[in-house]
């Protein structure tokens, strides 16, 4: 929710505060997510992270995607996860689910290593001539609403991909049903 | 004759027709098979049930047409013209600068005629010996023909490579499906051996095509003549590229020590497979040396070290092949090793680089195709009757099968190189030519006239002569008329080329002389250019 025409350095404190707030909450939730033994608890912490991400999307002028994030991820997908966990009765968690401390330390070290490398790599300069004017996205949203800017390329340039995606989804549905049913089908046979 | 050919525009359509006819025949047979084949009875005896009649009839007709069409080349080819003749040049893959260019010179003409003749006879040789999946068999045989002819005709290096691979696959299946007991091992060995070489060749061809790219358009160009003139590469690069071509062709030839696929492939392949392999496919290796490897990199090929190594390998192959033949218990394997020896002569002839030796090498290529082809046919025929290839299982059968014995004896004399048969002409020319530049190698190679007599005469003695002491050999039927029809053309060629090879020599002379003078001149030119450190063209 950037103010129109404002340069980067002059973002409102409110804005920056919330961005960092959601970021931190997201990270903490994620950390909790990976360390919880109980799958249910883990899943719920992940939902929390998803929400934080949705908020950040909105702060980054992607209101539509933020909404979709809440609907699809935090809503649909995570619900399915929880549903499966409960269906399989995995709520208690199993003793050997998490690896030992040694593994954790090494994994942490690797994680930090990758992080360091990513940071090192992002020092590269972004190509300036492709960069849009500051606040262009927010301007678009203001002029055409949250959906129209994304709808235009989606149904023009990326129409084919969009249609393929629909087929993908169909295939996924069929596949999921087939996989889920397989056991019974085999029993019958 | 040549006026008639001109009147029907023979020159303009013959080369593509030679490729189209077998492919069309293959398509017809394949469609026929797909439509009419009984689905439920694979592996049945299709000769007995009559299923084989259609495919083999179609194949025979196709090969007969192919042969008649190719025969016109004998007259339409102008021996005085050393350039490419009957050229067609069509656009094929323009974005990579690849064209569909076909053309012939004296060498290619003879190889094409040899191929069409042998393939026609190969159908006769397969007539009753191939009894399963006949549709696929004859279709593959036709595709194989198109591939081999394509290699001989291609004037575009990329097309050459494509045809090189096209012929590989049918042969793999012919050995692998209709072969003997160890056919899977043999076919795999054949395939892998050849692939290792041809992959490197592809890399070298692509490099050359890029090195010879058109300065105006920046497109690569794979045209043979263009590459010959414009793909100037430094001497070190040339050596690497020559090495790539060398490996591809040396495996195919096969030169010692890359020859061990050959005995296995020959022994396991069905009769026609062995014939095609020996008569034509081996020649593709030596043809590759004459057409590509040596003319493209004369300085590398003829540099003292590389040349000596190749000559040494050739001579080792000559003697080694003969000595190993001496002790083979299996007649087919014996002939296979003798091929190593004979092809060694070809290599010796090419690299000795005199007009006589190169002409001799070309003659050996033709002669080996005829004589060894006939030998494999004969082995196949007796195998059909007795189901064994072991020499010791025979003995004294000359009295039971006099016609077979007569044929085998004549062909054997040809393979030994008795004067008056074709074998002598080739060997003599190779040796007399090589002796001028490489007396030591030629001297060693000449000793093989002794060993070759020893191994072949010993073998036919144990098969045809001695006492008829095995009861199962007493009722072997003699050759039938079909088998005679297969052999008589070959025997006629054996005598004709032995007594009056001049027409063939005359047709090849232009190309052979051009090869020698070109390589000689460009070897020196490249050496001088190298001394002046010519700028290397980077692809």
């Amino acid at each position: 929710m950037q103010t129109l025409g404002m340069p980067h350095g002059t973002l409102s404190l409110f804005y920056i505060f919330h961005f960092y707030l959601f970021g931190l909450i997201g990270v903490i939730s994620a950390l909790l997510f990976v360390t919880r033994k109980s799958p249910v608890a883990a899943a719920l912490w992940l939902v929390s992270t998803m929400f934080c991400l949705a908020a950040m999307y909105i702060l980054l002028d992607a209101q539509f995607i933020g909404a979709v994030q809440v609907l699809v991820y935090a809503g649909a997908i995570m619900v399915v996860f929880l549903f499966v966990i409960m269906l399989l009765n995995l709520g208690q968690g199993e003793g050997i689910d998490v690896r030992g401390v040694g593994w954790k330390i090494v994994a942490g070290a690797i994680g930090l290593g990758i992080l360091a490398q990513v940071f090192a790599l992002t020092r590269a300069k972004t190509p300036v001539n492709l960069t849009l004017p500051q606040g262009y996205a927010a301007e678009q949203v203001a002029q055409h609403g949250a959906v129209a800017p994304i709808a235009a390329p989606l149904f023009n340039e990326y129409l084919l991909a969009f249609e393929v995606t629909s087929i993908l989804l169909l295939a996924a549905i069929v596949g999921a049903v087939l996989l889920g049913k397989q056991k019974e089908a085999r029993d019958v046979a | 004759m040549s006026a008639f050919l001109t009147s029907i525009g023979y020159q303009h359509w013959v080369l593509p027709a030679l490729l189209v006819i077998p492919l069309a025949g293959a398509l017809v047979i394949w469609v026929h098979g797909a439509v009419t084949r009984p689905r439920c009875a694979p592996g049945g005896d299709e000769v007995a049930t009559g299923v084989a009649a259609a495919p083999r009839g179609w194949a025979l007709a196709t090969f007969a047409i192919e042969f008649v069409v190719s025969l016109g080349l004998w007259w339409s080819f102008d021996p005085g013209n050393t350039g490419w003749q009957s050229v067609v040049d069509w656009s094929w893959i323009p974005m990579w600068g690849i064209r569909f260019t076909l053309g012939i010179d004296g060498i290619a003409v003879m190889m094409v005629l040899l191929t069409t003749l042998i393939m026609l006879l190969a159908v006769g040789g397969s007539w009753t010996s191939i009894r399963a999946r006949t549709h696929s068999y004859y279709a593959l045989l036709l595709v194989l023909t198109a591939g081999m002819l394509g290699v001989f005709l291609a004037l575009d290096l990329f097309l050459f490579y494509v045809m090189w691979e096209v012929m590989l696959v049918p042969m793999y299946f012919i050995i692998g499906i209709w072969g003997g007991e160890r056919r899977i091992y043999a076919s795999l060995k054949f395939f892998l051996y050849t692939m290792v070489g041809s992959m490197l060749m592809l890399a070298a061809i692509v490099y050359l095509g890029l090195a010879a790219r058109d300065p105006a358009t920046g497109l690569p160009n794979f045209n043979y003549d263009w590459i010959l003139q414009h793909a100037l590469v430094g001497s070190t690069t040339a050596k690497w590229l020559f090495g790539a071509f060398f490996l591809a062709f040396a495996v195919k030839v096969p030169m010692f020590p890359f020859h061990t696929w050959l005995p296995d492939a020959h022994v396991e392949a069905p009769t026609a497979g062995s014939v095609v392999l020996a008569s034509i496919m081996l020649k593709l290796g030596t043809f590759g040396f004459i057409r590509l490897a040596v003319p493209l990199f004369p300085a590398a090929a003829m540099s003292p070290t590389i040349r000596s190594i190749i000559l040494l390998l050739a001579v080792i192959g000559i003697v080694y092949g003969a000595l190993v033949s001496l002790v083979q218990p299996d007649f087919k394997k014996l002939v296979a090793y003798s091929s190593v020896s004979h092809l060694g002569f070809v290599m010796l002839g090419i690299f000795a680089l005199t007009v006589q030796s190169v002409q001799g090498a070309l003659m050996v290529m033709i002669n080996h195709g005829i004589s060894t082809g006939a030998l494999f046919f004969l082995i196949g025929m007796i195998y059909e009757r007795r189901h064994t290839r072991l020499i010791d299982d025979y003995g004294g059968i000359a009295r039971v099968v006099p016609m077979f014995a007569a044929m085998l004896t004549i062909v054997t004399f040809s393979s030994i190189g008795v004067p008056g048969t074709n074998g002598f002409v080739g060997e003599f020319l190779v040796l007399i030519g090589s002796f001028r530049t490489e007396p030591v190698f030629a001297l060693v190679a000449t000793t093989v006239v002794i060993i070759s007599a020893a191994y072949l005469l010993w073998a036919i003695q144990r098969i045809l002569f001695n006492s008829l002491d095995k009861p199962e050999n007493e009722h072997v039927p003699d050759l039938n008329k079909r088998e005679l029809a297969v052999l008589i053309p070959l025997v006629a060629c054996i005598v004709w080329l032995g007594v009056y090879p001049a027409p063939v020599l005359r047709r090849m002379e232009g190309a052979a002389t051009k090869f020698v003078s070109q390589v000689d001149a460009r070897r020196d030119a490249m050496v001088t250019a190298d001394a002046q450190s010519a700028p290397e063209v980077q692809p």
Partner: protein
Amino acid sequence: MLPEALFFSAVLFVIGVFGVLIRRNAIIVFMCVELMLNAVNLTFIAFAQVYGVAGQVFVFFVMTVAAAEAAVGLAIIIALFRHRQTVNLQNINLLKG
């Protein structure tokens, strides 16, 4: 806000990797992968602000694929569980060569 967004994205991604490395429960590993996907989405969104709306379209597609993937993946896990009575990756080695 680009650097900040990228920073959070990287951190979240690495946490996802960490989770994949230390967890043995198939479902949780799966969720970790989802987390990594989300982290990447954040990057897309952040760049979309600078380079144009195409990034958002990408995210849209990623989400769709993720949804499909989740459906099929979970179906597989269910099938696996029915077969093996466990979702612990240590006990599952069907891919062994």
